[in-house]
């Protein structure tokens, strides 16, 4: 692959990027020819984005970019002045970023956004430019371009925004398109559409440099995959080689970490299982804990009990009652002009003891609202949630607070759910205080929690900002475990994590469930993840549960057309690869 290729639009040889003493990329070489796609794959910090940005001169301040060759068309990118760079960007090479809502100017209509780039490089007048803009928008698959061009980014759906972003990137007709995580923030059906659009651009002769953390996404487009780790090339080859016959351990690890149908019941990460113990909490309100301790003693037997439906036992609570049951939830929010938008229509589901219920759906399907109602954070308009067969959502907050320790939550963004003024010690200490752990015992208890989630006492004094995303999610899990809960509501717990970190967190959640028999309400847009973790699954669309059943049954024999669409849209690495 290192053979000199005169046909190539882009030639990169021995690219090295340093930030001060820190090396971000070393010795990266690749060629990109028209109509071909090279994919840089890796986890955060692997140097994949920064390598792509070197082709745009956007590596950032404080950086040193060196290469024995860095050529784009006829330009030697190593010697460009800022003014020359501006001529290259947009005209020769376009950039599509991950988050279209952030990457598009909120005060610009998408029409003027696309026109800006077009007019800058072609010097067209407003009138003729507008017609080309409409043609461009139509080309990226936006229907009614005349109407859409006048709209602002916030008025458009995520898919339309991403299309608009692509339109502005290709407006000046660049021969090279760099797509940096172009589908990461998108729902799976929209992701499929955007990938199809990129494939079409590629067929029309655009050279595509794709940057992604997702091997499955990449496998559908790429002609060559380069796996990066900590700035170094780990492995490179065709998708077939990389995906089906990886040589490097790291590549294999990455592939193993992807949750899917085949990984059910298997560990995703190479880490050993975590060991969890129920905390023996002194000074807890005995009255509130009687039920728990009774249950604690019989935990191993209970999951069998519930499965067989038997009810012979000395438990204070009927063991047949599901731990969490949502009945006919309806929720609406006021919308414009006095109307109301209904986000939940008659939603019912049950979470069995010690099991995981996965709720999947795309953004706006109402799954997070359902979670908030289950947590007692948002009141439902009608319907109710029962906790362990007893009233929960209908309680008054004062009564609910005494039982909140039984149901805890882990969110997608732990940083947002931690008080920015807290460090790990105060975060865990506060959670422990709600179950009456005395001040003097909190550090020990917090350390025990940290050790269970694979961290240690040295993290007590850390601020969440000083921790990595995976460590933060572990802290969130430790915080949730502090109150010894029976249920943990996980709202997109792994969607902000790298695949290998995601694997660790998913394994951790499974160990936790195996050993503590905690029931998990697992909300995710990622069907692969849900298929891996959930015993039962509820598929939500437009505020309704369109399908509900045992996970294997739902995925293998989907009955609802929407479920079928969702499953079909999942990019898979096992799909037959066309030889190009």
């Amino acid at each position, binding site marked *: 692959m290192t053979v000199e290729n005169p046909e190539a639009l882009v030639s990169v040889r021995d690219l090295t990027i340093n930030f001060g003493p820190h090396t971000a990329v070393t010795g990266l070489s690749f060629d990109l020819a028209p109509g071909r796609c090279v994919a840089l794959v890796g986890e955060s910090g692997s140097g994949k984005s920064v390598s792509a940005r070197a082709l745009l001169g956007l590596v950032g301040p404080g950086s040193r970019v060196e290469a024995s060759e860095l050529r784009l068309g006829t330009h030697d990118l190593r010697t460009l002045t800022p003014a020359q760079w501006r001529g290259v960007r947009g005209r020769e090479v376009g950039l599509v970023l991950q988050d279209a809502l952030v990457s598009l100017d909120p005060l610009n209509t998408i029409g003027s956004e696309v026109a800006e780039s077009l007019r800058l490089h072609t010097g067209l007048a407003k009138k003729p430019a507008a017609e080309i803009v409409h043609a461009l928008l139509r080309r990226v698959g936006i229907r009614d371009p005349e109407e859409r061009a006048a709209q602002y980014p916030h008025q458009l759906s995520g898919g339309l925004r991403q299309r608009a972003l692509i339109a502005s990137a290709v407006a000046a007709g660049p021969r090279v398109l760099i797509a940096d995580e172009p589908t990461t923030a998108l729902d799976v059906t929209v992701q499929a559409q955007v990938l199809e659009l990129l494939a079409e651009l590629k067929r029309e002769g655009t050279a595509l440099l794709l940057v992604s953390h997702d091997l499955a996404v990449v496998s559908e487009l790429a002609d060559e995959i380069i796996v990066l780790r900590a700035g170094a090339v780990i492995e490179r080859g065709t998708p077939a080689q990389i995906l089906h016959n990886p040589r490097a351990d790291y590549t294999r690890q990455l592939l193993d970490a992807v949750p899917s149908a085949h990984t059910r019941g298997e560990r995703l990460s190479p880490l050993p299982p975590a060991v969890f113990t129920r905390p023996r909490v002194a000074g807890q309100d005995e009255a509130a804990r009687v039920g728990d301790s009774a249950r604690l003693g019989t935990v191993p037997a209970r999951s069998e009990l519930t499965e067989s439906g038997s009810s012979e036992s000395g438990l204070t609570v009927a063991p047949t009652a599901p731990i969490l049951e949502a009945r006919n939830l309806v929720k609406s929010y006021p919308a414009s002009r006095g109307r109301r938008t209904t986000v939940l229509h008659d939603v019912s589901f049950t979470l069995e003891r010690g099991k995981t219920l996965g709720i999947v759906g795309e953004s706006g399907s109402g799954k997070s609202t359902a979670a908030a109602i289950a947590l007692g954070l948002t009141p439902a308009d009608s319907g109710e949630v029962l906790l362990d067969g007893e009233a929960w959502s209908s309680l008054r907050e004062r009564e609910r607070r005494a039982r909140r320790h039984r149901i805890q939550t882990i969110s997608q963004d732990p940083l947002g759910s931690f008080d920015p003024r807290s460090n790990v010690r105060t975060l865990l200490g*506060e959670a422990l205080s709600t179950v009456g752990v005395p001040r003097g015992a909190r550090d020990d208890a917090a350390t025990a929690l940290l050790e269970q989630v694979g961290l240690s006492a040295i993290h007590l004094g850390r601020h969440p900002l000083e921790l990595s995303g995976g460590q933060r999610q572990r802290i969130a899990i430790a915080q949730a475990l502090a109150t010894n809960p029976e249920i943990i509501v996980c709202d997109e717990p792994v969607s902000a994590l790298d695949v290998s970190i995601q694997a660790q967190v998913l394994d951790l959640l499974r160990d936790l469930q195996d050993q503590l028999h905690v029931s998990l309400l697992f909300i995710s847009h990622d069907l692969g993840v849900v298929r891996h973790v959930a015993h039962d699954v509820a598929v939500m669309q437009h505020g309704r549960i369109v399908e509900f059943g045992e996970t294997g049954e739902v995925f293998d024999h989907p009955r609802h057309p929407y479920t079928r669409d969702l499953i079909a849209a999942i990019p898979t690495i096992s799909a037959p690869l066309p030889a190009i």
Partner: protein
Amino acid sequence: MSLLRARPDGPPRLPRSERVRSAHALHPGVALSALVVLLLLVAAIWPGIFTGQDPIEGNPADAFAGSSAAHILGTDQLGRDLFSRIIHGTIYSLSLGVGASLIGLIGGIILGVLAGYSRGIWDRVITRALDVLLAFPEVLVALLTITILGPGQWSLLWAVGLGRIPGAARLVRTQVLQIRGSGFIRSGIALGLSPARLVLRHVVPNSLGPVLVHAVIGVGVCIIFGAALSFLGLGAVPPTPEWGLMLSEARQYLSIAPWIAIWPGVFITLTVISVTVTGRWLQQRFISKRSSL
């Protein structure tokens, strides 16, 4: 996209940590202001260190004397040493500035948190009352307060301080509304924290950033406003060596002894600038750094 600038061949820029540190470094102007504030504080607490002369009793025979060894800044219309009067007046201006700003801060926090966290009827009552207060010019509010309380140092303090409350309360309320909707408050509720703990330990500390800036800048504003009210005869009463009052008394003699007016004016200006510059620096150095974490 063009916001990002890269200069692969340009001079290397400092790493972020270096730049942040240099932003907090002591600028010469800031150092000078801090020194002035320090001297003013000493003068306010121990005026005797700077001058041995009496600020109240003067010798009428020495009236309107220019600057000399005996009287560095000269004397006023009653033969009192001007430097001594200014030094002894420091305490009035500084305490008024800090005190009034504190009244505004504390009142603003209480009302703002009440309005923002309770929402509902309390919010509506408090917000409307603040709107009414904001509709009046500050001078009018101050005049009203002094009319009710009678003239004097304490009424001046309240007159200036009360006028600061509505602005501060609005800032706090907006922050509280924003913070109470944030993820960590929701997760605190889900954790089972009591409302009192949520408000005092999480909502209030995270809502204070903007109002602290408001209070720090307010010290200088209050000093000027207090001096202005004293100038109008609504604050300190003669023979108190209050700077605004001194200005007011001196204006009759502007043509024959301009320094009697100039020096208090110079000190008011100097104090306000130094206090504001130092306060801003302290706020950037300590408050915004912590809240940005």
